[in-house]
């Protein structure tokens, strides 16, 4: 079925500046402007830099998307896959006009509705009804249109009784349901959905997926869908874009693309690499080795963290600590190493060590590491590295009756129940 193209992307690229943006920008802006006046190229943009987040490059400009070209036909449901930082969200942001590309063009046909986040613009003090109108208008609906769909939206969200209650009194589930309901009822030719279904309970997720498949299959609208959940991508979409380091690796049938993605994108997530400091001890590499590929760890398996520390000179009484914190930045696990007790940091140059957490039972969530490097006696802290080595914990595929609920706990333990 060829209904014609609705989106055509040509040579799309997007550069981001890393690090501090606030300092020195006036002088940089002046330098940039001066280069432009002389007809030279921008001194801070070097095309060709790779967006590999684990290695540090000379320039602090990174290409989040590099020369992307693709076309989407009307009625297609297209998945966008790739690991964290591959450029998926950037691509959606550009397609939804939230940010402009650095180079390249996109041609499109028809109204675009994008759902990059659930409940954008919800005001906690306003009632559910008021928020439906406000949120709908933010997404580009006219008041009449919302009025016409109000009943349907309320019905889908299942919040009739709370329609005139401020949304700050809603449970988080109700909040998400309402927000998704508004966006799902938008009349648009193109629907862009980022990983928003990660929230909400399993039943509602199913309902949302059902609604989205209605949208693409039943109503003939075009859907672009980003997810880490390959099952969802496989059931919802027919074609998929596979992004790797900002480049379009493959654009093909979803099955083929997912297979390629799973084969080629090896475990590069959970790693931190930095050039050594010349004068003080520092972490040069921290790597989380998870039980599954792609930075995914199975609850109950051994979690391993490999650490390289560079010591320009030998210092006595070093200590290292490692915290694992969850996506809300709450530390869950704390481990430490005192060199006086277990001598692992006794030579100058790179010291390699490994921290093993046997049968690590973190609950399903996204986790990061926080690393500290200090000298115990003088209580001097050399380095503190935050939010590195992101990894994802998933629950074993054991059927429990209501499914694994988000935020049930932060850690699971072995347990038995018995009759007494």
């Amino acid at each position: 079925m060829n209904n014609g193209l609705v989106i055509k992307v040509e040579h799309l690229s997007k550069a981001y500046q890393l690090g501090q943006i606030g300092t020195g920008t006036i002088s940089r802006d002046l330098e940039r402007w001066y280069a432009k006046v002389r007809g030279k190229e921008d001194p801070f943009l070097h095309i060709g830099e790779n967006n590999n987040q684990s290695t540090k490059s000379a320039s602090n400009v990174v290409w989040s998307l590099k020369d992307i070209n693709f076309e989407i036909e009307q009625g297609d449901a297209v998945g966008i896959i790739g690991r964290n930082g591959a450029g998926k969200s950037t691509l959606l942001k550009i397609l939804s006009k939230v940010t402009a590309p650095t180079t390249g063009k996109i041609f499109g046909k028809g109204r675009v509705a994008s759902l990059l986040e659930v409940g954008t613009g919800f005001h906690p003090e306003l009632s559910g009804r008021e928020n439906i109108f406000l949120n709908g208008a933010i997404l580009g609906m006219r008041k009449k249109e919302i009025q016409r769909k109000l009943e349907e939206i309320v019905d889908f969200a299942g919040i009739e009784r709370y329609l005139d209650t401020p949304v700050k009194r809603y449970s988080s589930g109700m909040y998400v349901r309402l927000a998704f309901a508004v966006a799902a009822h938008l009349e648009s030719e193109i629907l862009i959905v980022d990983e928003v279904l990660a929230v909400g309970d399993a039943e509602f997720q199913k309902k949302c997926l059902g609604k989205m498949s209605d949208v693409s299959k039943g109503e003939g609208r075009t859907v672009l869908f980003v997810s880490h959940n390959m099952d969802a991508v496989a059931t919802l979409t027919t074609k998929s874009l596979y992004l790797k380091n900002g480049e379009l690796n493959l654009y093909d049938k979803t099955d083929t693309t997912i297979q390629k993605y799973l084969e080629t994108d090896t475990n590069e997530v959970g790693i931190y690499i930095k050039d050594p400091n010349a004068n003080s001890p520092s972490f040069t590499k921290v790597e989380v080795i998870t039980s599954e590929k792609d930075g995914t760890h199975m609850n109950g398996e051994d979690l391993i963290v490999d650490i390289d520390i560079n010591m320009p000179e030998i210092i006595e009484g070093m200590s290292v600590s490692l915290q694992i914190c969850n996506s809300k930045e709450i530390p869950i696990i704390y481990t430490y190493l005192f060199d006086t007790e277990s001598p692992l940091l006794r030579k100058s140059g790179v010291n390699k060590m490994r921290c093993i957490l046997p049968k690590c039972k973190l609950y399903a969530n996204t986790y990061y590491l926080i690393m500290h490097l200090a000298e115990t006696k003088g209580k001097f802290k050399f380095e503190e590295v935050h939010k590195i080595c992101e990894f994802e914990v998933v629950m074993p595929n054991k059927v429990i009756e209501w499914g694994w609920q988000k935020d049930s706990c932060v850690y699971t333990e072995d347990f038995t129940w018995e009759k007494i």
Partner: protein
Amino acid sequence: MENKEAYNWTIEAKASLFDLKLNEVWAYRDLLLLLVRRDFVSFYKQTILGPLWFFIQPLFTTIIFTFIFGNLAGISTDGLPKPLFYMAGITAWNYFADCLTKTSTVFRDNAGIFGKVYFPRLIMPLSIVVSNLVRFGVQMLLFLLMMGYYYLSDARFQITWAVGLFPIIVILMALLGLGAGMFISAMTTKYRDLAFLVGFGVQLLMYATTVIYPLSTALDKYPEYAWIIEYNPMTPIIETFRYGFLGEGSFSWGSLGYATGVTIALLLFGILIFNKVERNFVDTV
């Protein structure tokens, strides 16, 4: 090569500075009204006094000004009843100052929304100006009530023909605040310093405007510095406002024309720079 005419929108790296997308702004007019409503309703939700808070701030400022500048410092009010003189200045000044300060943080305050969904960004500053207009209307009511009170107690003031310029003055104040605010908001996405400047800058600017003293006194006492006050585009606006409602103040077509010129220039400049920053600010804010 297929026909590109078939597409009805494009996204490009560079857009024309002068493409203000006013037709899009018009298409989103419902959003503008809903935002205004949100601001108004959320302002007094869970307060006891509710919309009365709109009155309290100008009322207390007037009382304090009357006491400090009027009685303690003895600054002339052109023979007008002191509270009436200050209330006129405060009401007008507040509208301009609110428009300016609220618009100047529009990118920062709405970074969350702007980062997640597209709508013509111009809607946000416009909604601020309209929201404040509601507030200004309520405060005007207070001013008119006070005029009524002084009229009944036979105070010396009179409404002149210039009161007919009121709508123009309101528009000028709104656009001046909007233009300056948009310029500052666009700059603050990169240079945060400006945000600090605005807070006390607006306060200082009030003293360079004829809010607590009449222009005639300034010209009288400091003839060599009075040009600062005269070049301030808000001065002719407030003077006209006072002349219209109270019959005192230095009104001239020339200075009002000057204020209009500055407003239009600043507004155009503000919109252009806002338009430029708007496309990429999500990456830097």
